[in-house]
């Protein structure tokens, strides 16, 4: 299956991408996606601890299973207002 992953702010600058398409096995979790991403983009590693994850515009836990077509966002600590 294929998901879209969006990056913002510091992680976006670190890896030089704002959006990628990632192929994953059926039933892969957000955690497994992150393992894949940090293998491809080691610069992402330092942001893992403080990043929240969102799937289809909702914050999720790492154990959530992904589905084909999902839009995942890596959300580093927010700073609006």
């Amino acid at each position, binding site marked *: 299956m294929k998901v879209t992953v969006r990056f913002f702010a510091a992680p976006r600058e670190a890896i030089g991408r704002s959006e990628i398409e990632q192929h994953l096995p059926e039933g892969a979790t957000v955690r497994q996606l992150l393992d894949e991403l940090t293998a491809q983009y080691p610069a992402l590693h330092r942001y893992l601890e403080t990043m929240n994850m969102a799937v289809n515009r909702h914050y999720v836990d790492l154990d959530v299973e992904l589905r084909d077509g999902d839009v995942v966002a890596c959300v*580093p600590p927010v700073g609006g207002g």
Partner: protein
Amino acid sequence: MSAAPKKLFEITIDPLSVDEVVGRLADPSIGAIATFVGVVRGETDGRQVHHLEYEAYPEMAEDMLRQIGAEIQQRWSTIQRVAIVHRVGHQVVGTVSVVIALSAPHREEVFDALHYAIDRLKDIVPIWKKEVWADGYEWRSER
């Protein structure tokens, strides 16, 4: 010329007008409006700020702003309407970065609801602030 009604919860690249955002609340039942205006400050931690760059995940940010509005109306039942408009992009010192406006028939609950709105925005909305000074930059957050 477009006459499309303005959204109550919006991420925009355009300059903000407090009056304009307040105008989105218009309703004959209201007797009180409270506003919060966020402004780009010229100094942080002893450093002179050159400018800020705000970035957003706009679709999710608007969802989260809408959620904050719903949370407010759930918790403070007299609040009639909530509008939150956040600007993104390059912003120099003194720029209005966010306007929150909310209305009610009477003033009792508007201040508490407004305080909640800005605190909650800073907690959950996917917007990021890059502070740029003369010889460097940093992505800032409250955490």
